[in-house]
C-alpha cells in the first residue's frame, strides 16, 4: 500500500513535470498532460493545483475559477488553496483595479451562483476572525438577497454578541459599524425576515447610538485616550496625525480606512429609522421620508405628529415614532449647534476660530443697587429671527423663558446654528411633556450613557441658561467642574474656561459675587496664551429690553473674556470699595481694573477719588505695580499737593508709615519719602504706554489671592 502510494506520488509528480516542461513551447500540451494526470490521480491536490496555476498564468478566469472551485469542494484544508480563496474574496471587497484584483474578481464572477454562495458561506464559516466572517457574510447577503432571511438575522445576532463579549469602550467600534451601517440595512431591506418589533427597536437604538457617537467623536490628540489609530510613535505617523488627525475621523480599529468611512451619517440614520419605522407600523408621512428638509419643516412635521397622537401615547408604535423622531431631531440639532459653537469637540469638524461660550449678560443686570442711567441707547441687533415659526399660543407661553442672545464680534454663530439650538430646545421640551415619553427618553439616554457626552452636557447648560434656570445650571456646572478638575490640565483648559465662565455668570446672577469673582479669576487663569493681544476695544454695552433676559455669546479669547471678567470683578469690588467701611485694598483693586476700557468708567474713578479725599488717607502698596493710567497718576499726584488736600498716600512698595517710623530720629524724613514718591511717579509715567490688557491679566493672575481675600 505504502509503496503504491509512493509510486503514484512519483508518477503524478512526473506528469506535473511533463506539463511544466511543455508549458512554454505548447501550453495546450501542458493542459492535456494535466487533464490526463487528473483522471489518473483524481485525489492528488498537486495535479489540480498545477492545472489551476496554468489557467491562472494564462489569465483564463473561467477555467481557473472552475478548477479553484473543484479544489475548494475537494481539498478544503489545503492552506495554499485557502490562501487563493482568500485572495478571491478579498478582491471582491477591493476597489483596486490592479490586474490581480481584476483577475480574482473575474474568477469569482465566472462561477455559477450556487458555487459563489458556497464559497462565501464556507469561507465565512471557516474564518476565525469575527470581522472577516462578517465581511464575507455581507458579500453573501449583498449578492444573494434570498439568503438574507436565513443568514441576515443570524449575522446581526453574531455581531451583537461579539460586541458584547469584547466589551469595547466605545460604540464606535468595528462590530457596531458593520452591524449598523452594513448589516442591518441589508437585512431590513428583505421583506421576508422574521423579526419582532422589540428586536427592531433594539437595532435602531444601536444604530442611533453608533451614528451619534461617530459624529461626535472627540478629536484624537497625541497621547490622549481617544480613538487613536495606532500606537506607532514613529515621527512620520506623528506628523500625519498632526496634519490630518484633527480634522479627519480616525479609522475604526479593526477596519480598513475605506470601511471606516461613513458617508452622510444623518441621512443614512434617517433612512434606517424610516425603514425600521415602516416595519414597526409607524404612520409615516411621505414628506418626512426625506432627510433633506429645512429644520423648521422637520420640527413642524414632528409637532403635527405629536399633536395628532398626544392624546394617546399609550399606543406604543406611535409613541415610539414620536420618541425616535424627536430624539433624532434633538441630537441632530445639538450636533449642528455644537459644530457652530465648539467645533473643536469633534474630530470631524475643522475650525480656525476659538470656541464660543454662552453666558448671562451681566452688564445690564442691576446686580448692585445703584442702577446707572444715561447710558447711550443703541439699537440692539435682534437675533431672534424666525421667532414665531409655528409657535402656537400655548407654546409661546411656554417659551416665555427664552432669552435674547447677543453675540460678540468674534462670537458670531451662523443663523443655522442658532436655529438648531432653538429647535433642539423645542425637541427637548416635547420629549419631556408627558411622563411616558420622558420615561422612554431617559431610558434611551441611560442605554447610551449620555451623561458622559460632553457636548450634550454643554448644550443642556446652554439650554438652562437660555431658559433662565440658573439654579439647575449651577448644580450641573458645579458637578461638571468637579469631574473636570481631577483631569489633566492641558487637555481641559478650554472646558475649564467655559465652565468657570458660565458658572461665574450664573453665580453672579444669583448674587453670589464672591464665588462669581473667584470663578472669573479661574477663567482668566485658563485663558489661552495669545501671541498678540487681541484688539482692545471691548464690545460696547448695549441696553436690553427690560422685559427679556439677555444672554451673551462670547468667543473664548482674551478679547472677549477679559472684559467680561473685568466687569464681574468691577461690579463686585465697587460694592466693597465704595461702601461705608474703609477698604483701601478694594478701592485700589477697583482703580486698577478701571484702567481697562478707560475712560468708560471714569465716573466710578471719580467716586473712588472722592472717597479717598473723604478718608484723608489711602494705602495701596502695589499701586506702582499696576496703575499706569496717566489720568489716574495725575490725579494722585494732585491729591498729594496742598491743593489736592494733602492726602496721606501710602503707595510705595514699602510702606511709608514704616519708613517714617524708622526715621523718627532724623529730621526731614518726610522729605526723603516725598522724594521717593516723586521718583516713583515719574517712573510710572514712563510706563503709561504699556498694554493695559497684559497688565490687567497679570494683575488678575498674580494678585489672585489678595483679590480673593479682600472679597471675603
Amino acid at each position, binding site marked *: 500500500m505504502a509503496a503504491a502510494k509512493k*509510486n503514484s506520488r512519483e*508518477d503524478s509528480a512526473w506528469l506535473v513535470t511533463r506539463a511544466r516542461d511543455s508549458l512554454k513551447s*505548447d501550453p*495546450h*500540451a501542458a493542459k*492535456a498532460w494535466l487533464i*490526463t494526470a487528473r*483522471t489518473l490521480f483524481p485525489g492528488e491536490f498537486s495535479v489540480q493545483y498545477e492545472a489551476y496555476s496554468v489557467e491562472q498564468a494564462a489569465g483564463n478566469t473561467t477555467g481557473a475559477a472552475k478548477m479553484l472551485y473543484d479544489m475548494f469542494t475537494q481539498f478544503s484544508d489545503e492552506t495554499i488553496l485557502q490562501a487563493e480563496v482568500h485572495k478571491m474574496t478579498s478582491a471582491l471587497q477591493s476597489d483596486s483595479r490592479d490586474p490581480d484584483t481584476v483577475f480574482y474578481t473575474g474568477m469569482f464572477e465566472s462561477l455559477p451562483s450556487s458555487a459563489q454562495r458556497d464559497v462565501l458561506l464556507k469561507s465565512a464559516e471557516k474564518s476565525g476572525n469575527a470581522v472577516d466572517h462578517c465581511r464575507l457574510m455581507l458579500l453573501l447577503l449583498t449578492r444573494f438577497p434570498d439568503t438574507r432571511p436565513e443568514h441576515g438575522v443570524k449575522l446581526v445576532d453574531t455581531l451583537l454578541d461579539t460586541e458584547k463579549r469584547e466589551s469595547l469602550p466605545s460604540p464606535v467600534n468595528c462590530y457596531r459599524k458593520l452591524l449598523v451601517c452594513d448589516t442591518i440595512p441589508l437585512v431590513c431591506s428583505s421583506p421576508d425576515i422574521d423579526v419582532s418589533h422589540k428586536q427592531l427597536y433594539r437595532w435602531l437604538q444601536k444604530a442611533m447610538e453608533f451614528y451619534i457617537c461617530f459624529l461626535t467623536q472627540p478629536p484624537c490628540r497625541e497621547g490622549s485616550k481617544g480613538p487613536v489609530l495606532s500606537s506607532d510613535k514613529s515621527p512620520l505617523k506623528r506628523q500625519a496625525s498632526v496634519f490630518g488627525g484633527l480634522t479627519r475621523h480616525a479609522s475604526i480599529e479593526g477596519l480598513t480606512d475605506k470601511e471606516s468611512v461613513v458617508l452622510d451619517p444623518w441621512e443614512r440614520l434617517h433612512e434606517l429609522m424610516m425603514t425600521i419605522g415602516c416595519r414597526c407600523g409607524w404612520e409615516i408621512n411621505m414628506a418626512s421620508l426625506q432627510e433633506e428638509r429645512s429644520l423648521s419643516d422637520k420640527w413642524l412635521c414632528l409637532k403635527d405628529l405629536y399633536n395628532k397622537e398626544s392624546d394617546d401615547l399609550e399606543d406604543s408604535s406611535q409613541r415610539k415614532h414620536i420618541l425616535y423622531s424627536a430624539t433624532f431631531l434633538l441630537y441632530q440639532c445639538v450636533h449642528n449647534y455644537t459644530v457652530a459653537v465648539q467645533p473643536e469637540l469633534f474630530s470631524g469638524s475643522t475650525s480656525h476660530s476659538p470656541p464660543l461660550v454662552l453666558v448671562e449678560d451681566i452688564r445690564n443686570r442691576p446686580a448692585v443697587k445703584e442702577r446707572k442711567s444715561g447710558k447711550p441707547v443703541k439699537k440692539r441687533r435682534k437675533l431672534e429671527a424666525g421667532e414665531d415659526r409655528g409657535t402656537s399660543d400655548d407654546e409661546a407661553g411656554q417659551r416665555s423663558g427664552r432669552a435674547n442672545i447677543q453675540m460678540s464680534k468674534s462670537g458670531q454663530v451662523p443663523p443655522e446654528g442658532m436655529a438648531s439650538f432653538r429647535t433642539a430646545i423645542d425637541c427637548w421640551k416635547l420629549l419631556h411633556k408627558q411622563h411616558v415619553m420622558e420615561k422612554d427618553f431617559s431610558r434611551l439616554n441611560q442605554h447610551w450613557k449620555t451623561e458622559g457626552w460632553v457636548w450634550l452636557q454643554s448644550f443642556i447648560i446652554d439650554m438652562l441658561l437660555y431658559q433662565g434656570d440658573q439654579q439647575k445650571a449651577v448644580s450641573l456646572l458645579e458637578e461638571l467642574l468637579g469631574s473636570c478638575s481631577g483631569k489633566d490640565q492641558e487637555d481641559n483648559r478650554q472646558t475649564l474656561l467655559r465652565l468657570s465662565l458660565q458658572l461665574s455668570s450664573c453665580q453672579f446672577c444669583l448674587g453670589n459675587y464672591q464665588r462669581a469673582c473667584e470663578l472669573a479669576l479661574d477663567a482668566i487663569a485658563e485663558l489661552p496664551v495669545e501671541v498678540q493681544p487681541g484688539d482692545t476695544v471691548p464690545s460696547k454695552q448695549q441696553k436690553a429690553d427690560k422685559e427679556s433676559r439677555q444672554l451673551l455669546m462670547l468667543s473664548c479669547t482674551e478679547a472677549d473674556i477679559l472684559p467680561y471678567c473685568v466687569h464681574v470683578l468691577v461690579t463686585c469690588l465697587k460694592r466693597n470699595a465704595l461702601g461705608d467701611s474703609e477698604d483701601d485694598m478694594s478701592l485700589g483693586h477697583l482703580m486698577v481694573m478701571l484702567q481697562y476700557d478707560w475712560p468708560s468708567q471714569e465716573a466710578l474713578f471719580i467716586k473712588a477719588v472722592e472717597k479717598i479725599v473723604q478718608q484723608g488717607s489711602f494705602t495701596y502698596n502695589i499701586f506702582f505695580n499696576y496703575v499706569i493710567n496717566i489720568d489716574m497718576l495725575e490725579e494722585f499726584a494732585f491729591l498729594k499737593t496742598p491743593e489736592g488736600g494733602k492726602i496721606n498716600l501710602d503707595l510705595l512698595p514699602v510702606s511709608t508709615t514704616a519708613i517714617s517710623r524708622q526715621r523718627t530720629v532724623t529730621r526731614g524724613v518726610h522729605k526723603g519719602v516725598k522724594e521717593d514718591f516723586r521718583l516713583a511717579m515719574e517712573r510710572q509715567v514712563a510706563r503709561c504706554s504699556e498694554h493695559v490688557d497684559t497688565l490687567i491679566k497679570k494683575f488678575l493672575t498674580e494678585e489672585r489671592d489678595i483679590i480673593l481675600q479682600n472679597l471675603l
Partner: protein
Amino acid sequence: MKMPSLRDSLAYEGFPQATRRVLEQAEAACSGGGEVGGGGGSQLAALVEEFVHFRPPDALPHHTGLNALQELQLLQILSDYFGGKTNTGLARQVFMVLFATRGGADRLTDHKVKLLGKLVSMCIATQHEMVLDCTSYWILQEGAASPPVLTLLTSVIQDYCMLMPGTLDTLRKVDRTSPSFACQFVTIVTGLYQLKPVSSSHPPPALLEVIAEWVAGNPRICLASLKDTKGSAPVTPIPGLCHWCVKSPLVQNPEKNAPEDAILYSKLHLGVLQSLLAAQTIAPNAKLLPVSTVEEIVADLRALVSAAGQQGEAAQTAVERLAQVMQVAMATGCTHLSRKQVAGVCGQLPENRLLALILGYGGEG
C-alpha cells in the same frame, strides 16, 4: 381532384408567388402530422420540383429554370421563410421536403445540392441559425459520408477557406450560431481530409485553425449532435479528430509549414480531451470512441512508425496523445474498452512511459 387546379393556379401565378405558396403547402402537409411520403406526398414533391426547383419531370429539354437574379430571389425567399419559423421540428421536415436526396438517389440531387450549397454559404454569412440547424439535420439524414453531403461541404469549404479567406471570421462564429451545424461540419471535414502523405488530404490551414478554435474553445461543440442521434450510434467528430491528432506528428503536410499546424493539432488534441470530460456530464456513457476507431488509429500509427522507421520524438508524441485520449476516455466512460483490452490493442506500439503508466494503472488500483 383538387391538386390539378392548385397546380394550374400556381402555374398561373408563377415565380415568386407560386414558390411561397408551395412552401405553405409543404408546411401544411408536414404539420398535418402525416408522413410526407404518401400519395399526397408525391403530389407535394411534384409541386416542389416544379415551383421551388423549377425542374418539373415533364420539362422540355431547353427548359432552364430560374435565371441568376431569380435564383438569388429564391434564396432570399427560403432564408426568410426559415428565419420566420420557431418550431424546429416542423422546419426540419419542410427542409427535408425541399432538399432530401435519399443519399443521392433523387433525380434532382445535383441541382438540390448546388442550390443548398448556395443557401448554406449565404446563411453562414448571415449567421442564419435555423437554416444551419436544418442543414445539420439534413446531413445526418443523408449520411455523413454520402456523396451529396461531401459535395455540399466541399463547396462550403471552397467558398470560405479557399476563395475568400477574408470571410473566415463569419465561419468562425458559426459554432455559436449553430453548434449542431459546426459539429456536423467538423465530422465531415475529418472524413474529407485523412492526413495521407499527399497535400490534398491535409485540411487547409485556415480551416484547421477554425476547427481548432471551435473544438478547444467550446468542448460542447463535439457533442452538439448527440441529441439528434439518440438511440443510434453517436455521430461525433471525436473519432475523426482522434485520427488527426494522433497521426499528425508523423504525417507532414508536404506543402505547408509544420510548426504552425503542430500547435493547432495540439490545441485540437486538448479540445478532444476537454470534450471527453464534458461528455461525462452532458452525455454520460455515450461511447464516443468506438473500438473500431481505436483499432484503426493503432493500425495506422504502427504503419506510419514502421514505414518511416520513426522512433523519435514525433512517434513518442503520437503515442502519448493516443495514451492520453485512451486514459481520459476510459476515465470518463467514453469507450467500451477496458484497460486490459487497450493493452491488447496497443501492444505493438513504441515503448512509452505514459502508455506504460496508463496500462499499468489498473493493476494497482
